[in-house]
């Protein structure tokens, strides 16, 4: 069987359920693939792993993939299992925030490590300086969890619909205590978990073929996971070697993730790509990317696969 190493963007969880399902249900094996799934973690940059030859394909968000491309690591999107964005900015209601205009003078917490681009783009679109002051917002880097919101260290924080949002509710805040801004609804969403490979590898037809089979099996996994969220969550749980995940949380996450993958057969919609690029380019003084990328995606693989 052909060996494929997949580098995830984060730790083993239902966010990556489709891949685990494909592996567990033998979809990869059916395609003659022997897939190793490497979870990520804080400060694991999937692009680096890819560039270092530690993986053949990675899961990453498009803003950071495009940024990497501009930095000289030519990664190419070969498939886009996530159709829509699960990213939100969640604020405590008591801060008085009701519209994006109210962010002025407030403290917003975000993850960094390539995950900050969507927020920065949004702020520059709103015309807010991120340096603080009366006309700006204070940006803070937050760790992996929602404590800054709970402990009132930040007025708003970024939260995924499938994870942090539920943690906030679990912690005892009710939806009534919160004001939620969805990137999707604000029209500034950027593409999330897509599959990327190194451009130079794509020149090899054998590699193309391998990736086509990989994408086909992965999408089969995703569609199975969408249809069987609870079982998919259990597969994820089995693959979690840390024993830290809870069934309740993973099942819920799988349910939410299923909503994000729902509209995709794996093929990247060029319109989504354009919107992402436009959002990123429009960021003011310190844009994520400075020029229109070229060749950042291909349908070659999905065309073959589907």
């Amino acid at each position, binding site marked *: 069987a052909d060996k494929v190493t997949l580098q995830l963007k984060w730790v083993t969880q239902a966010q990556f359920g489709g891949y685990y399902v494909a592996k567990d249900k033998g979809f990869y094996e059916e395609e003659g693939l022997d897939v190793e799934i490497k979870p990520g973690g804080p400060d694991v940059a999937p692009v680096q792993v890819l560039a*270092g030859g530690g993986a053949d394909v990675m899961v990453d968000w498009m803003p950071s993939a495009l940024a990497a491309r501009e930095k000289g690591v030519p990664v190419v999107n070969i498939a886009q299992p996530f159709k829509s964005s699960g990213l939100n900015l969640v604020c405590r209601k008591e801060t008085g925030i009701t519209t994006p205009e109210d962010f002025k003078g407030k403290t917003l917490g975000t993850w960094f490590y390539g995950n900050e681009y969507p927020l920065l783009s949004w702020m520059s679109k709103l015309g807010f300086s991120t340096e603080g002051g009366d006309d700006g917002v204070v940006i803070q880097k937050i760790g992996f969890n929602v404590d800054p919101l709970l402990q009132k260290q930040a007025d708003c924080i970024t939260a995924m619909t499938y994870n942090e949002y539920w943690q906030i509710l679990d912690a005892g805040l009710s939806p009534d205590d919160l004001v939620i801004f969805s990137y999707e609804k604000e029209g500034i969403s950027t593409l999330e978990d897509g599959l990327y490979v190194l451009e130079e590898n794509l020149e090899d037809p054998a590699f193309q073929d391998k990736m086509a089979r990989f994408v086909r099996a992965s999408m089969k996994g995703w569609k199975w996971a969408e249809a069987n969220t609870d079982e998919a969550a259990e597969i994820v749980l089995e693959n979690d070697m840390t024993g830290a995940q809870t069934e309740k949380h993973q099942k819920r996450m799988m349910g939410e993730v299923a909503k994000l993958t729902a509209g995709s057969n794996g093929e990247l919609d060029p319109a989504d790509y354009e919107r992402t690029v436009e959002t990123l380019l429009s960021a003011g003084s310190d844009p994520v990317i400075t020029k229109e990328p070229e060749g950042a995606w291909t349908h070659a693989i999905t065309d073959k696969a589907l």
Partner: protein
Amino acid sequence: MSRALPVATVIAAIIVIWYLGAVWMNAQWERDQAERAGVEITLAEIIPKTMAQERPVLPAPHQVAVELWDTVAAKPVTSKRSLVWHGWITLSATLLGFAFGTALGVILAIGIVASRTMDISVMPWVIASQMVPILAIAPMMIVVLNAADVGGLVAKAMISMYLSFFPVVVGMVKGLRSPDALQLDLMRTYSANGAQTFLKLRLPASLPYLFTSMKVGVAASLVGAIVAEMTLSQDGGLGSRLLNGSYYGQTMMIWAALIASAVLAGGLIPLIGAAQRLAMRGRPT
């Protein structure tokens, strides 16, 4: 045991302070919750609630104890939900890295003491190497090691080594230089060669320094293993528990992992103390 009573007293004091801290630090949340719900809450109502929160700022000791019981005693040690299992994973990387680190530290120290060129050229860079924030390069190191086909355990041990060799170098250099002029002159009169002076004088004289440094080194090694486990979370280990506990807001899991790692360190350090007593038996105390 002459230690039992004092240790028990100190632990009791810590627990009392801990409970007070838990009440004090968690109370704000209860007050906020009451305010959001629009109800009045009295202190008598707050206190019990502060000790039973799911995401406390500081969990009460018994909450951590329950978690520890669940993950240590109530799970088979082969379960991935067992803290013993994860502790063992961390311990093995720690010990391997500590062995590498001590060996590297001792070898460097010998070189530094033996060669003036080594001393002035290498020592500043050894120091500078420690100013490199390990967490920043740990993932990169692991990426590189992985590309070179180095497995998880060894990769983790390398990080441990990186952190633990330094205290050993510093302490060992000092120890190897601690013999006084008279003791060194004696060796000169025997025209002892470098190896003999080392084995029969410098090494025994350095032991108190070496073991003190090793106690620091083993703690550093543990930290290194845990840092590496955050990157290599798929292998489990206390680091992966810390990461996941933090990520999923499972405060009890964090504290249980913290306590487990403290207990590990707490077990390793006396072991080194015992080795020290063995190696230095007969010397005046």
